[in-house]
């Protein structure tokens, strides 16, 4: 990988082209690959979620488009959304309204920089690794508030406010739950964290950390049982009530892309990343990630929605103390073991 890149650069250097040209080409190729991966994976996840929900409710779900169990349903839906009329409500703040989906999607896209699909399959092994994801994901909330406010609709403002409150309160236990792993490894780099799990996956010594992370991550994704920001029965659709067509599709894309990101990070931090016998590393990574995504979908169609006060109680009075306890015990064990 590295060698091929160097050869690519040296070819351009021989021709006398400034180094910015091959660098830009590499960047464009990497971004295109990531966006392509996100689109395909999201389309698969949407079809999969519809299938899971249908089977949980003793239905079949999409069956017709594409032949085999309606596999092409998401593609058809995507094309339909692309062709729809672009509507901006008359009372909306047009600039902010147009900017909001881009901010949300940019945050979702940026997080893919640090996902380690394999030993060499990472866009960039940043020194600050996990911290990068935690900080960049907070940009999503800004996008959601922009969308909710600019729509000029009371439901969307309520949804945006709820979403902000939820994200701010669940970010704290999320960060603290990850600290146990970081303390054990002594590094924030994703590659080093995965490599430290060669012998034992961190889900075993850090079981509580894993549970807290998963709970907080589901809340960060605004999914049931924590979906009060978009509670259909109260808020129609929450912050994206006024969005339709492609703008709505971008929100949807970002939401599922985020779901993949939190699952991939759970895989890298707790489930040993790409480690596993026989199969190639990237396949192991994807299998583990999709297993967590399956659990998230399963929970969504099994549990009922929490009330706002229950949500806040759970976040601040249960998850946060447990996360701190987990951190303290990990620290104590590390100190005793030297």
């Amino acid at each position, binding site marked *: 990988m590295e060698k091929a890149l160097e050869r690519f650069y040296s070819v351009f250097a021989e021709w006398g082209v400034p180094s910015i040209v091959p660098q830009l080409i590499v960047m464009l190729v990497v971004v295109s690959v990531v966006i392509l991966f996100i689109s395909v994976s999201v389309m698969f996840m949407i079809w999969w979620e519809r299938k899971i929900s249908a089977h949980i409710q003793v239905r079949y779900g999409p069956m017709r488009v594409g032949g085999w169990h309606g596999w092409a349903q998401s593609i058809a839906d995507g094309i339909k959304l692309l062709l729809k009329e672009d509507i901006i409500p008359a009372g909306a*703040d047009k600039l902010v309204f147009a900017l909001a989906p881009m901010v949300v999607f940019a945050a979702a896209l940026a997080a893919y920089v640090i996902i380690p699909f394999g030993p060499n399959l990472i866009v960039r092994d940043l020194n600050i690794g996990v911290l990068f994801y935690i*900080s960049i994901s907070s940009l999503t909330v*800004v996008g959601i508030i922009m969308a909710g406010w600019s729509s000029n609709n009371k439901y969307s403002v309520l949804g945006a406010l709820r979403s902000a409150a939820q994200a701010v309160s669940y970010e704290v236990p999320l960060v603290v739950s990850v600290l146990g792993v970081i303390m054990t490894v002594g590094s924030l780099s994703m590659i080093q964290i995965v490599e430290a799990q060669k012998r034992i996956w961190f889900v075993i010594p850090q079981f509580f950390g894993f549970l807290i992370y998963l709970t907080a991550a589901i809340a960060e994704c605004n999914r049931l049982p924590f979906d009060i920001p978009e509670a259909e029965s109260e808020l129609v659709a929450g912050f994206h009530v006024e969005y339709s067509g492609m703008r709505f599709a971008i929100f949807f894309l970002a939401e599922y892309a985020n779901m993949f990101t939190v699952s991939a990070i759970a895989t890298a931090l707790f489930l040993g990343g790409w480690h596993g016998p026989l199969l190639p590393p990237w396949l192991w990574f994807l299998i583990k990630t999709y297993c967590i995504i399956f659990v998230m979908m399963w929970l969504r169609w099994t549990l009922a929605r929490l009330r706002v006060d229950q949500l806040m109680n759970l976040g601040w009075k249960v998850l946060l103390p447990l996360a701190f306890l987990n951190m303290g015990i990990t620290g104590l064990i590390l100190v005793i073991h030297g």
Partner: protein
Amino acid sequence: MTVTQAVFFLLAAFTLGAALLVVLATNIVHCAIALVFTFFGVAALYVLLDAEFLAAVQVLLYVGGITILLLFAIMLTSRISARGVKIMNEQAGISALVVFAILALMVFANLKGLVLAAAPLPASYATASLGRLLLTTYVLPFEVVSILLLAAMVGAIILAKREREKD
């Protein structure tokens, strides 16, 4: 012009543009959103200076924390966003004086070639050594700042409680 310089000028223009929007926009929500982009631009400049940790913390605290609370407060204040904000106020003269004083100081420092920053650390060590320094050499200021924040939090809780007792 190297790539880094080109990126720097792009980022600087972006940050300054957003900062101007914060001051010049008449809608207070627009100001707050522009502030988000200003903070983000500053974080990007930190990355350019190899201070990745600082950049991540900047985004986490300023973008993810402070401006969201700001937007929250704006939205919970009834009809504040419908009213226009006054851009100029009666303190314009004094603030102009302060701005020019700071500008003059910066120009002077740059012309004299004043070195304010220490030599950069190798990037891969920056985060770890920052943590080590915070818990050894600078542990006292670090703890003092924590106590300050704790006091602010306790104060906020007491204020909120008093409000509730009045109701």
